[in-house]
């Protein structure tokens, strides 16, 4: 048993840290968060050139075909750099296409995603803001060889820059349809919503009689529900890894500050009240890391514990990142509360990450279904 990154995995992670250290400095993050889209064509293309947009895309579709542990290693560094933009949205959409798309659909979309030409997102949430698939009310009306979509999807990440949007809708009695809508489709409108975390843009997406041909729907003859669950699990693992990277940045930055900031004639890191905050931050960060990499491994291996592992990781990371952020700001004191200090980027990212794909309460309930309801 070996619970550590292999040499190639470590190399990949180190090179990601080096690359993001050069290409995604905090000043750049700040510039992008002030824009409407948090997107930068040049940065996106260089990310694609690293192979990251195709990291887990199968080789036959132009990707690297790597596993989720590798994805987690790279995502951790993205979180450490607080990388803005559509990586996570596109990853989740690509995972959905890979699971639900026909051969032709996979060929059509996955290769451009891998090369960086195509960005995509999944439109899931509605007014209820619930990540439970059973709470979806949005209906796709089938007739005349096509589906008609009318209604609104909310909190859709990066919809404004996405070339492809996959709408999750109810169809028939209790069926689920995954409907691809391309940018510029007749009746589609995207409105950015201003939100706490400027590095991950959320949009309201309006559908006014948007039509999708029956032949274009994903997972028409398969298991749309299963595909959606699988794709979201990939997104959750990547998000948790990002959160771990963010926690690590907050921890490192806070410890560094505690070693240099002086009060009462000594560095504040020599006071136990400060030391114990830092020790707890370390414990939270490392525990989040264990949970996340285990989930990545279990999903890749198809381990029976994988679904529970994913929810355990998301429940823990959601609480832990917020808590690490709280303590980090507290140790910094006044400077940590300013706009000027980069802590605010991570503090806000922890909040948007907490709710994305379901918060701790949501995932604890999912764990309860697996461990409390399961018959002994």
């Amino acid at each position: 048993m070996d619970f550590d990154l292999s040499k190639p995995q470590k190399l990949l992670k180190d090179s990601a840290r080096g690359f993001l250290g050069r290409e995604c400095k905090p000043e750049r993050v700040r510039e992008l968060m002030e824009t409407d889209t948090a997107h930068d064509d040049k940065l996106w293309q260089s990310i694609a050139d690293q192979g990251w947009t195709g990291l887990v895309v199968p080789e036959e579709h132009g990707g690297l075909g790597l596993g989720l542990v590798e994805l987690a290693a790279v995502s951790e560094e993205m979180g450490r750099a607080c990388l803005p933009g559509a990586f996570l949205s596109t990853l989740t959409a690509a995972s959905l296409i890979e699971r639900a798309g026909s051969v032709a659909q996979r060929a059509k979309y996955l290769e451009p995603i891998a090369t960086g030409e195509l960005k995509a997102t999944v439109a899931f949430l509605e007014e209820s803001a619930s990540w439970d698939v059973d709470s979806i009310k949005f209906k796709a009306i089938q007739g005349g060889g096509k589906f008609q979509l009318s209604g609104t999807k909310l909190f859709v990440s990066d919809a404004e820059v996405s070339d492809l949007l996959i709408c999750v809708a109810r169809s028939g009695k209790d069926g689920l349809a995954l409907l691809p809508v391309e940018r510029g489709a007749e009746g589609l409108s995207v409105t950015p919503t201003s939100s706490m975390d400027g590095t991950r843009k959320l949009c309201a997406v309006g559908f006014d009689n948007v039509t999708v041909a029956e032949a274009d729907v994903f997972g028409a003859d398969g298991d749309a529900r299963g595909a959606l669950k699988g794709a979201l699990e990939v997104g959750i693992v990547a998000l948790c890894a990002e959160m771990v990277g963010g926690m690590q940045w907050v921890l490192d930055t806070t410890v560094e500050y505690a070693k240099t900031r002086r009060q009462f004639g000594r560095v504040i890191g020599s006071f136990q009240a400060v030391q114990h905050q830092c020790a707890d931050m370390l414990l939270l960060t490392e525990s989040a890391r264990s949970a996340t990499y285990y989930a990545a491994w279990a999903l890749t291996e198809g381990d029976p514990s994988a679904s529970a592992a994913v929810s355990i990781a998301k429940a823990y990371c959601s609480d832990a990142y917020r808590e690490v952020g709280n303590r980090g700001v507290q140790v910094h004191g006044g400077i940590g509360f300013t706009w000027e200090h980069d802590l605010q980027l991570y503090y806000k990212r922890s909040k948007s990450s907490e709710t994305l794909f379901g918060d701790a309460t949501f995932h604890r309930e999912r764990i309860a279904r697996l461990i409390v309801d399961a018959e002994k």
Partner: protein
Amino acid sequence: MDLNLTANEQQFRDEFRAWLKINTPEEWKGSTSAEDRHEYIEYLRDWQRNLYEGGWAGISWPKEYGGRGVTLMEQAIFQEELARANAPQLIGTIGLALVGPTIIATGTEEQKSRYLPKILSGEEIWCQGFSEPNAGSDLAALGTKGIRDGDDFIVSGQKTWTSFAQMADWCLLLVRTDAEAPRHKGLTCLLADMRSEGVSVRPLRQMSGDSGFNEVFFSKVRVPASQVLGEVNKGWTTAITALMNERAHVGTGAQVVFKRNLEALIARSRTIERNGRPASEDPIVRQKLAQAYLELEILRLNTKRALTSLSKTGTPGPEGSTQKLYWSEMNQRTQQIAQEILGPYAQLKDFDNGLWEYAYLRARGNTIEAGTSEIQRNIIAERVLGLPKSY
């Protein structure tokens, strides 16, 4: 990264599991109170002798000293299997996990051949005489004296929180042999015979009702100078070796016990009512059970990561402190959840054999024993994060 057991690890597990299936004794149903202790001790000694004869005692020790030289992973598997089989505690655990490895690291050849075989067989039980009434977290403040007199040291003073002292034959004893030297530089480790004249043991009753540890009084006890472990006045280094082993050791075996305990709580939540429905259907109860479950699962994963890192670096380091901090606080939270879900039933001594009442009270000690949470956080801050010493 590969979390599957290797072929060797799997073979090791299967072999030990098969052995346990045949050899694990019936659970002790008798009393463990002071009056009947003798019988219970014999039962535990028999169990360790049985392990020894099967080649399953001190498995982490090098082969030349009677161990199996197994890997850290296999040690963890060993602990898991013991707990899974509901096997009795190891009466010689201080000797096996703490004293033995320290003698192997710093003892003379005579000491090794004299003591190691009897630690393995359980013939001689050890305790650890470190803490004192005025030297707990601040161990280097200890005041028990060892004064040189010819070929002996004359030991006077008091030790406390000494587990197993009431049944121990020997004590790994830390005493001050140079009162003039700086505090860390005047200490010496002795291998002291608990049957020596002048040693007296008084069991301490814990709030949970049992007497796991003791006070030990030394009144002009003669310990031959040949019984020094390591060098005179270099006892601090020896003691640290022992303490690192202690922290690295605790927790792996406890995990399966925690798991059994949580499974029992989940099962109970299905039979106990809340608002006219099984408690297991109550959303708040479900949240709490899930939180307890996920925290325990992460303990398991943290342990596996720590073991991987230990396997690569060799000696137990400050990572042991993060483990200790995590499991002790987790167990307290989980026991509180059990109390909330079961309400006053959890306080009854005849509900589930008093399991919840005992577990809650016993957990209270977890953040104090083997280094308080405060000390663990100090160690993490200084030795992992590199912050300056605070005291």
